[in-house]
Protein backbone atom coordinates (compact mmCIF):
# COMPACT_ATOMS: atom_id res chain seq x y z
CA UNK A 1 0.00 0.00 0.00
CA UNK A 2 2.13 2.77 -1.31
CA UNK A 3 -0.45 5.42 -0.61
CA UNK A 4 0.14 5.00 3.12
CA UNK A 5 3.79 5.94 2.67
CA UNK A 6 4.36 9.42 4.06
CA UNK A 7 8.15 9.64 3.58
CA UNK A 8 7.64 12.60 1.25
CA UNK A 9 5.61 14.38 3.88
CA UNK A 10 8.18 13.74 6.60
CA UNK A 11 10.97 14.97 4.32
CA UNK A 12 9.01 18.11 3.53
CA UNK A 13 8.32 18.73 7.20
CA UNK A 14 11.98 18.23 8.14
CA UNK A 15 13.00 20.62 5.40
CA UNK A 16 10.55 23.35 6.40
CA UNK A 17 10.72 22.98 10.22
CA UNK A 18 14.33 22.07 10.86
CA UNK A 19 14.17 23.02 14.53
CA UNK A 20 11.16 20.84 15.45
CA UNK A 21 11.54 17.23 16.60
CA UNK A 22 8.55 15.47 15.06
CA UNK A 23 9.60 11.98 16.27
CA UNK A 24 7.68 10.06 13.58
CA UNK A 25 6.69 6.62 14.81
CA UNK A 26 4.34 3.85 13.75
CA UNK A 27 0.85 4.41 15.08
CA UNK A 28 0.65 0.84 16.38
CA UNK A 29 2.50 -2.43 15.95
CA UNK A 30 1.23 -4.38 12.95
CA UNK A 31 2.56 -7.60 11.39
CA UNK A 32 2.14 -6.16 7.92
CA UNK A 33 4.45 -3.16 7.84
CA UNK A 34 2.93 -1.89 4.61
CA UNK A 35 -0.34 -1.20 6.44
CA UNK A 36 1.42 0.89 9.02
CA UNK A 37 0.30 4.47 9.58
CA UNK A 38 2.57 7.17 10.92
CA UNK A 39 2.14 9.44 13.89
CA UNK A 40 4.14 12.61 14.55
CA UNK A 41 4.38 14.85 17.60
CA UNK A 42 3.82 18.55 17.19
CA UNK A 43 4.56 21.11 19.92
CA UNK A 44 1.65 23.39 20.73
CA UNK A 45 3.45 26.61 19.82
CA UNK A 46 4.22 25.29 16.31
CA UNK A 47 0.83 23.62 15.76
CA UNK A 48 -0.80 26.21 13.51
CA UNK A 49 2.29 26.66 11.33
CA UNK A 50 2.72 22.90 10.91
CA UNK A 51 -0.95 22.26 10.20
CA UNK A 52 -1.11 25.11 7.69
CA UNK A 53 1.95 23.66 5.97
CA UNK A 54 0.46 20.15 5.91
CA UNK A 55 -2.73 21.57 4.44
CA UNK A 56 -1.12 23.76 1.78
CA UNK A 57 2.12 22.12 0.65
CA UNK A 58 2.05 20.27 -2.67
CA UNK A 59 3.70 17.16 -1.25
CA UNK A 60 1.28 16.97 1.71
CA UNK A 61 -2.13 18.31 0.63
CA UNK A 62 -3.98 17.11 3.72
CA UNK A 63 -7.25 18.72 2.74
CA UNK A 64 -9.44 16.75 5.13
CA UNK A 65 -9.39 16.58 8.92
CA UNK A 66 -10.84 13.11 9.33
CA UNK A 67 -11.01 13.34 13.11
CA UNK A 68 -9.87 15.37 16.05
CA UNK A 69 -9.93 13.81 19.48
CA UNK A 70 -7.97 13.62 22.68
CA UNK A 71 -6.44 10.98 24.94
CA UNK A 72 -5.93 11.32 28.67
CA UNK A 73 -2.61 9.67 29.52
CA UNK A 74 -3.06 9.87 33.29
CA UNK A 75 -1.32 6.86 34.89
CA UNK A 76 -0.38 5.59 31.44
CA UNK A 77 2.94 3.67 31.49
CA UNK A 78 5.88 5.78 30.33
CA UNK A 79 3.72 8.79 29.52
CA UNK A 80 5.42 12.12 30.11
CA UNK A 81 2.47 14.39 29.29
CA UNK A 82 -1.17 14.15 30.23
CA UNK A 83 -3.41 15.21 27.33
CA UNK A 84 -2.66 14.19 23.77
CA UNK A 85 -4.84 16.13 21.35
CA UNK A 86 -4.90 13.90 18.27
CA UNK A 87 -5.40 15.01 14.68
CA UNK A 88 -6.11 12.48 11.97
CA UNK A 89 -5.35 13.93 8.57
CA UNK A 90 -6.35 12.57 5.17
CA UNK A 91 -5.38 13.76 1.72
CA UNK A 92 -8.21 13.10 -0.69
CA UNK A 93 -5.93 14.04 -3.61
CA UNK A 94 -2.89 11.90 -2.84
CA UNK A 95 -4.55 9.34 -0.60
CA UNK A 96 -2.08 9.26 2.27
CA UNK A 97 -2.91 9.63 5.94
CA UNK A 98 -1.03 11.12 8.86
CA UNK A 99 -1.66 11.28 12.59
CA UNK A 100 -0.42 14.20 14.65
CA UNK A 101 -0.42 14.50 18.41
CA UNK A 102 -0.04 17.66 20.41
CA UNK A 103 0.66 17.13 24.11
CA UNK A 104 -0.47 19.59 26.77
CA UNK A 105 -0.59 19.48 30.55
CA UNK A 106 -2.44 20.62 33.66
CA UNK A 107 -3.26 23.23 34.80
CA UNK A 108 -5.13 25.02 32.00
CA UNK A 109 -4.31 22.76 29.04
CA UNK A 110 -4.62 24.81 25.87
CA UNK A 111 -3.83 24.35 22.19
CA UNK A 112 -4.49 26.71 19.27
CA UNK A 113 -7.63 26.06 17.29
CA UNK A 114 -7.38 24.69 13.74
CA UNK A 115 -10.84 25.93 12.73
CA UNK A 116 -9.08 28.50 10.52
CA UNK A 117 -7.62 25.64 8.46
CA UNK A 118 -10.36 23.01 8.56
CA UNK A 119 -13.75 24.49 9.33
CA UNK A 120 -15.05 21.05 10.31
CA UNK A 121 -12.88 21.15 13.41
CA UNK A 122 -15.39 23.41 15.16
CA UNK A 123 -17.66 20.78 16.69
CA UNK A 124 -14.78 18.35 17.22
CA UNK A 125 -12.92 20.92 19.29
CA UNK A 126 -16.09 21.69 21.24
CA UNK A 127 -16.39 17.99 22.02
CA UNK A 128 -12.77 17.78 23.23
CA UNK A 129 -13.36 20.86 25.39
CA UNK A 130 -16.53 19.32 26.82
CA UNK A 131 -15.07 15.90 27.52
CA UNK A 132 -11.45 16.71 28.45
CA UNK A 133 -11.38 20.39 29.32
CA UNK A 134 -8.67 21.24 26.80
CA UNK A 135 -9.17 24.82 25.66
CA UNK A 136 -8.76 25.82 22.03
CA UNK A 137 -7.40 29.34 21.65
CA UNK A 138 -8.99 31.16 18.76
CA UNK A 139 -12.12 28.99 18.61
CA UNK A 140 -15.04 31.35 18.06
CA UNK A 141 -17.73 29.41 19.90
CA UNK A 142 -16.20 27.14 22.52
CA UNK A 143 -19.32 25.88 24.32
CA UNK A 144 -20.17 22.43 25.62
CA UNK A 145 -21.68 20.23 22.93
CA UNK A 146 -22.66 16.91 24.53
CA UNK A 147 -23.36 17.53 28.21
CA UNK A 148 -26.00 19.90 29.46
CA UNK A 149 -25.83 23.53 30.49
CA UNK A 150 -24.58 23.99 34.00
CA UNK A 151 -22.47 20.83 33.94
CA UNK A 152 -19.12 21.62 35.55
CA UNK A 153 -16.87 18.62 35.04
CA UNK A 154 -15.04 17.08 32.08
CA UNK A 155 -16.20 13.47 32.26
CA UNK A 156 -13.72 11.67 29.98
CA UNK A 157 -10.80 12.63 32.22
CA UNK A 158 -9.44 9.51 33.85
CA UNK A 159 -9.83 10.94 37.35
CA UNK A 160 -13.56 11.60 36.91
CA UNK A 161 -15.71 8.92 38.56
CA UNK A 162 -17.97 6.94 36.23
CA UNK A 163 -21.07 7.68 38.28
CA UNK A 164 -20.34 11.38 38.42
CA UNK A 165 -20.11 13.71 41.35
CA UNK A 166 -23.81 13.95 42.10
CA UNK A 167 -24.78 15.72 38.87
CA UNK A 168 -27.38 13.14 37.92
CA UNK A 169 -29.16 13.37 41.27
CA UNK A 170 -29.47 17.14 41.55
CA UNK A 171 -32.36 17.97 39.36
CA UNK A 172 -35.75 19.64 39.59
CA UNK A 173 -38.52 17.25 40.57
CA UNK A 174 -42.07 17.44 39.29
CA UNK A 175 -44.81 16.21 41.60
CA UNK A 176 -48.25 15.11 40.58
CA UNK A 177 -49.74 18.13 42.35
CA UNK A 178 -47.49 20.62 40.62
CA UNK A 179 -48.41 19.28 37.20
Amino acid sequence: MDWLNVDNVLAALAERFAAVEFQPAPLMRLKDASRQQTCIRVPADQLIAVMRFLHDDERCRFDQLADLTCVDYLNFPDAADRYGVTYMLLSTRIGHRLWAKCFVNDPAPEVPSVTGIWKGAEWLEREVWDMFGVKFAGHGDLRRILTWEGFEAHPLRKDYPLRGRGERENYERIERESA
Partner: protein
Amino acid sequence: MGLGTTPAAPHLASKDDVLTTRLDHLMDILRQGTVNWARRNSLWPMPFATACCGIELMATGASRYDIARFGAEAMRFTPRQCDLMIVAGRVAIKMMPVLQRIYLQMTEPKWVISMGACACTGGVFDNYAVVQGVDQFMPVDVYVPGCPPRPETLLEGVMAIQRIVDNDGIRPSRERGGGRGLRLAVTAPAVPVQLGLPGEN
Protein backbone atom coordinates in the same frame (compact mmCIF):
# COMPACT_ATOMS: atom_id res chain seq x y z
CA MET B 1 -78.56 14.07 62.53
CA GLY B 2 -75.64 16.31 61.79
CA LEU B 3 -73.88 16.39 58.48
CA GLY B 4 -70.50 15.74 60.05
CA THR B 5 -71.30 12.14 60.96
CA THR B 6 -72.07 9.40 58.49
CA PRO B 7 -75.70 8.32 58.83
CA ALA B 8 -76.22 4.61 59.31
CA ALA B 9 -78.86 4.49 56.62
CA PRO B 10 -78.61 7.69 54.60
CA HIS B 11 -81.61 6.99 52.39
CA LEU B 12 -83.86 6.73 55.49
CA ALA B 13 -82.69 9.92 57.18
CA SER B 14 -85.50 12.07 55.81
CA LYS B 15 -87.72 12.44 52.79
CA ASP B 16 -85.28 14.85 51.13
CA ASP B 17 -82.36 12.50 51.60
CA VAL B 18 -84.10 9.80 49.61
CA LEU B 19 -84.16 12.12 46.67
CA THR B 20 -80.61 13.37 47.00
CA THR B 21 -79.16 9.92 47.60
CA ARG B 22 -80.97 8.49 44.62
CA LEU B 23 -79.78 11.47 42.58
CA ASP B 24 -76.22 10.83 43.67
CA HIS B 25 -76.47 7.20 42.68
CA LEU B 26 -77.70 8.29 39.30
CA MET B 27 -74.72 10.62 39.03
CA ASP B 28 -72.59 7.72 40.12
CA ILE B 29 -73.76 5.57 37.27
CA LEU B 30 -73.30 8.40 34.84
CA ARG B 31 -69.92 9.51 36.04
CA GLN B 32 -68.22 6.33 37.08
CA GLY B 33 -69.92 4.05 34.60
CA THR B 34 -69.47 6.24 31.60
CA VAL B 35 -66.64 8.69 32.24
CA ASN B 36 -64.22 6.14 33.65
CA TRP B 37 -65.33 3.63 31.04
CA ALA B 38 -64.76 6.14 28.27
CA ARG B 39 -61.39 7.23 29.61
CA ARG B 40 -60.21 3.68 30.15
CA ASN B 41 -61.07 2.57 26.66
CA SER B 42 -59.81 5.64 24.88
CA LEU B 43 -56.29 6.24 26.14
CA TRP B 44 -54.19 8.46 23.92
CA PRO B 45 -50.54 7.54 24.36
CA MET B 46 -47.69 9.98 24.01
CA PRO B 47 -44.79 7.79 22.78
CA PHE B 48 -41.61 9.17 24.35
CA ALA B 49 -39.41 6.57 22.68
CA THR B 50 -35.68 7.21 23.04
CA ALA B 51 -34.18 3.74 22.60
CA CYS B 52 -34.83 0.12 21.69
CA CYS B 53 -37.98 0.01 23.85
CA GLY B 54 -39.45 2.26 21.16
CA ILE B 55 -39.17 -0.61 18.68
CA GLU B 56 -41.25 -2.82 20.96
CA LEU B 57 -43.68 0.06 21.39
CA MET B 58 -44.03 0.22 17.61
CA ALA B 59 -44.53 -3.54 17.50
CA THR B 60 -47.24 -3.16 20.14
CA GLY B 61 -48.95 -0.61 17.98
CA ALA B 62 -48.65 -2.70 14.83
CA SER B 63 -51.03 -5.33 13.54
CA ARG B 64 -49.69 -8.43 15.28
CA TYR B 65 -50.21 -7.20 18.85
CA ASP B 66 -52.63 -4.42 18.02
CA ILE B 67 -52.89 -1.99 20.92
CA ALA B 68 -56.16 -0.84 19.31
CA ARG B 69 -57.84 -3.75 21.10
CA PHE B 70 -57.41 -1.63 24.23
CA GLY B 71 -58.45 1.61 22.57
CA ALA B 72 -54.99 3.12 22.82
CA GLU B 73 -53.94 3.07 19.20
CA ALA B 74 -54.15 6.82 18.59
CA MET B 75 -50.58 7.82 19.35
CA ARG B 76 -50.01 11.53 19.08
CA PHE B 77 -46.73 13.36 18.99
CA THR B 78 -48.13 16.44 20.62
CA PRO B 79 -48.67 16.28 24.38
CA ARG B 80 -51.78 18.46 24.15
CA GLN B 81 -53.74 15.57 22.68
CA CYS B 82 -52.47 12.84 25.00
CA ASP B 83 -53.27 11.50 28.43
CA LEU B 84 -50.90 8.51 28.71
CA MET B 85 -47.17 9.06 28.50
CA ILE B 86 -45.08 5.97 27.69
CA VAL B 87 -41.43 6.64 28.58
CA ALA B 88 -39.69 4.01 26.45
CA GLY B 89 -35.95 3.96 26.77
CA ARG B 90 -33.10 5.56 28.65
CA VAL B 91 -33.34 9.24 29.47
CA ALA B 92 -30.21 11.38 29.64
CA ILE B 93 -30.02 14.20 32.15
CA LYS B 94 -29.98 16.55 29.18
CA MET B 95 -33.29 15.05 28.04
CA MET B 96 -34.97 15.26 31.44
CA PRO B 97 -36.24 18.88 31.11
CA VAL B 98 -37.77 17.95 27.75
CA LEU B 99 -39.55 15.01 29.33
CA GLN B 100 -40.79 17.12 32.21
CA ARG B 101 -42.01 19.86 29.88
CA ILE B 102 -43.94 17.35 27.81
CA TYR B 103 -45.47 15.86 30.95
CA LEU B 104 -46.57 19.30 32.15
CA GLN B 105 -48.13 20.04 28.77
CA MET B 106 -50.28 16.91 28.73
CA THR B 107 -53.95 17.37 29.50
CA GLU B 108 -55.46 16.21 32.78
CA PRO B 109 -56.17 13.52 33.82
CA LYS B 110 -52.90 11.91 32.80
CA TRP B 111 -50.97 8.76 33.52
CA VAL B 112 -47.38 7.66 32.98
CA ILE B 113 -45.95 4.25 32.07
CA SER B 114 -42.25 3.79 32.68
CA MET B 115 -41.33 1.15 30.12
CA GLY B 116 -38.25 -1.03 30.38
CA ALA B 117 -35.27 -1.34 32.69
CA CYS B 118 -33.67 1.94 31.62
CA ALA B 119 -36.67 4.16 32.21
CA CYS B 120 -37.40 2.43 35.53
CA THR B 121 -33.87 2.23 36.98
CA GLY B 122 -31.29 3.42 34.47
CA GLY B 123 -30.61 -0.17 33.46
CA VAL B 124 -27.02 -0.97 32.60
CA PHE B 125 -26.28 2.70 31.98
CA ASP B 126 -25.05 3.49 35.47
CA ASN B 127 -23.06 6.59 34.60
CA TYR B 128 -22.98 10.34 35.16
CA ALA B 129 -25.19 11.30 32.22
CA VAL B 130 -28.18 8.94 32.55
CA VAL B 131 -31.20 9.33 34.83
CA GLN B 132 -31.40 6.40 37.23
CA GLY B 133 -35.14 5.98 36.91
CA VAL B 134 -37.48 8.70 35.67
CA ASP B 135 -39.58 8.34 38.83
CA GLN B 136 -36.88 10.31 40.63
CA PHE B 137 -37.98 13.43 38.81
CA MET B 138 -41.60 12.90 37.75
CA PRO B 139 -44.64 10.82 38.77
CA VAL B 140 -44.95 7.30 37.40
CA ASP B 141 -48.05 5.10 37.62
CA VAL B 142 -46.98 1.78 36.12
CA TYR B 143 -43.53 0.22 35.78
CA VAL B 144 -43.17 -2.27 32.93
CA PRO B 145 -40.16 -4.57 33.43
CA GLY B 146 -38.02 -6.04 30.68
CA CYS B 147 -35.08 -5.18 28.49
CA PRO B 148 -36.89 -4.41 26.31
CA PRO B 149 -40.33 -5.61 27.45
CA ARG B 150 -42.20 -7.80 25.01
CA PRO B 151 -45.38 -6.30 23.56
CA GLU B 152 -47.47 -8.60 25.78
CA THR B 153 -45.80 -7.03 28.83
CA LEU B 154 -46.51 -3.53 27.61
CA LEU B 155 -50.13 -4.49 26.96
CA GLU B 156 -50.32 -5.73 30.54
CA GLY B 157 -49.02 -2.32 31.57
CA VAL B 158 -51.76 -0.62 29.55
CA MET B 159 -54.32 -2.89 31.22
CA ALA B 160 -52.88 -1.89 34.59
CA ILE B 161 -53.43 1.76 33.63
CA GLN B 162 -57.02 0.83 32.76
CA ARG B 163 -57.49 -0.67 36.21
CA ILE B 164 -56.03 2.48 37.75
CA VAL B 165 -58.46 4.61 35.75
CA ASP B 166 -61.33 2.43 36.95
CA ASN B 167 -60.33 2.63 40.58
CA ASP B 168 -58.93 6.11 40.92
CA GLY B 169 -60.59 8.04 38.14
CA ILE B 170 -63.92 9.16 39.60
CA ARG B 171 -64.65 7.55 42.93
CA PRO B 172 -67.96 5.77 43.56
CA SER B 173 -70.78 7.43 45.49
CA ARG B 174 -70.20 5.77 48.86
CA GLU B 175 -66.55 6.91 48.82
CA ARG B 176 -67.56 10.42 47.89
CA GLY B 177 -69.82 10.55 50.98
CA GLY B 178 -73.10 9.05 49.82
CA GLY B 179 -74.52 12.24 48.41
CA ARG B 180 -73.76 14.41 51.42
CA GLY B 181 -71.98 16.99 49.27
CA LEU B 182 -75.01 17.16 47.01
CA ARG B 183 -77.32 17.44 50.05
CA LEU B 184 -75.21 20.31 51.34
CA ALA B 185 -75.68 22.14 48.07
CA VAL B 186 -79.45 21.53 48.15
CA THR B 187 -80.02 22.45 51.79
CA ALA B 188 -77.53 25.31 52.03
CA PRO B 189 -79.11 28.62 53.06
CA ALA B 190 -79.84 30.84 50.13
CA VAL B 191 -77.10 33.35 49.52
CA PRO B 192 -78.07 36.46 47.60
CA VAL B 193 -76.36 36.32 44.26
CA GLN B 194 -74.16 39.30 43.69
CA LEU B 195 -73.68 40.47 40.19
CA GLY B 196 -70.85 42.62 38.98
CA LEU B 197 -67.74 43.48 40.90
CA PRO B 198 -67.86 43.57 44.73
CA GLY B 199 -68.67 47.00 46.14
CA GLU B 200 -70.10 48.26 42.88
CA ASN B 201 -73.79 48.39 43.90
